[in-house]
């Protein structure tokens, strides 16, 4: 199987099967550009926003999902569902918060719809039903001033 080389943000080179890489719309577009240029195909494709550790995880996901049928047209009902994740994906995403966010950013950059969907669903289900104090574990300290916070607390009584 032909493979291509990808260069992560840390400079490391990672080799991956072409068909798998094409699940990423970004890489697919880059490959089409390269073919047009007809340059030597030894140069690795630089991916400045993804490090190789995350690339490996992404490849693992793509390998498992390579035979997936294309997702159906935007289903209004499906948008609000956060628990329809397959068992394999559930296990795959049992990683730390940092890795999960890195996977979202990678899926966004590489434009892999399925992975983006499933990671966002996971984060949504992690965040929901919690109080704002607990939300602060997911984000930096609040930038609100005291007056603004008081105002918001009043509005919450709506």
């Amino acid at each position, binding site marked *: 199987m032909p493979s291509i080389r990808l260069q992560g943000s840390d400079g490391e080179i990672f080799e991956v099967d072409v068909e798998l890489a094409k699940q990423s719309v970004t890489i697919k577009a880059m490959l089409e550009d390269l073919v047009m240029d007809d340059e030597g195909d030894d140069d690795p494709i630089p991916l400045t926003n993804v490090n190789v550790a995350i690339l490996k995880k992404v490849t693992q996901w793509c390998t*498992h999902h390579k035979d997936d049928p294309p997702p159906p047209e935007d289903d*209004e*009902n499906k*948008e*609000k*569902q*956060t*628990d*329809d*994740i397959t*068992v*394999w994906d*559930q*296990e795959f995403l049992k990683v*730390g*918060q*940092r890795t999960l*966010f*890195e996977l*979202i*950013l990678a899926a*966004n950059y590489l434009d892999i719809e399925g992975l*983006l969907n499933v990671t*966002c*669903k996971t*984060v*949504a*289900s*992690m*965040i*929901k*039903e*919690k*109080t*704002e104090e*607990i*939300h*602060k*574990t*997911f*984000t*930096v300290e*609040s*930038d*609100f001033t005291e007056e*603004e*916070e008081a105002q*918001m607390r009043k509005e*919450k009584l*709506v």
Partner: protein
Amino acid sequence: MPFLGQDWRSPGWSWIKTEDGWKRCDSCSQELRSENGQYTINHSIILNNGEEEIFSNECEYAAKKRKKEHFGNDTAAHSFYREKWIYVHKESTKERHGYCTLGEAFNRLDFSSAIQDIRRFTYVVKLLQLIAKSQLTSLSGVAQKNYFSILDKIVQKVLDDHQNPRLIKDLLQDLSSTLGILVRGVGKSVLVGNINIWICRLETVLNWQQQLQNLQMTKVNSGLTLSDLPLHMLNNILYRFSDGWDIVTLGQVTPTLYMLSEDRRLWKKLCQYHFAEKQFCRHLILSEKGHIEWKLMYFTLQKYYPTKEQYGDTLHFCRHCSILFWKDYHLAWLLKDSGHPCTAADPDSCFTPVSPQHFIDLFKF
């Protein structure tokens, strides 16, 4: 007393003791392990006690099929679990095909493994909630034990992974108020079992509520936070919430999230998801400029109408066989097995998903 093994010469079953009672251990798994050494099966196949012959025949067939199918192909094999089903009879005749009350269904459908699957978790919790509201007095002793042991697993899971806390708090609230009324009010005449057991259970529930109240998430200094995600990603996540309170709460964390959470389109989508056009018209709220105030409307409509229920996976009912069962898509693909011994010509057309309320109604006479 004739021995009802697979055939009269077989050495009998081996049994293992589990917290749900004695379960029969399937010897097929040992056969598979010895013949196909390279395939590891992490879970031995456990049959529920008291299954009829047909179920053990199904297991044999399934085992043979598995030897032929390349089990090692799929790394998800370790998540294989045995299907459970129960016959539900509709007419109240004197003849019955087995014991089928709500409590028995509760025992046989193996909810304790279902809660480990997030697709089924919310569904099972909703079922427990409906039972807590009205059906506690109809459960047999064993069903009560199972109910509370599953509840214990659920609470431990929530304390562990911090998911779905509000859902469980609501469930425990309903349960503690019902138990309170039953134990102090109506009491001994209605409850099955010694009143002291029920008092103990009430104390356990109050204890769980206290533990959940004290639930603290430790701050993880991981460097990457929600704020590092680009705006459209945060929006993507906001659009996935089906409860308005989650949107409001998230909006209180940073100014950026506040701005995103006030977006009119977000609330419009939410209203359209839960409520119908007719319901909007009855409770229309307009701003001074004549725009629809979707956020206010959402909270108003919520007071009058029930919100939409949607589950990742539910129990299914086969109209042909009158059987209630879990569908296992993985098994169904691997073994062409629908989850119960179906005799219909076209199985898929007979299956309907069962809502939690429908499940309770199936067992009302």
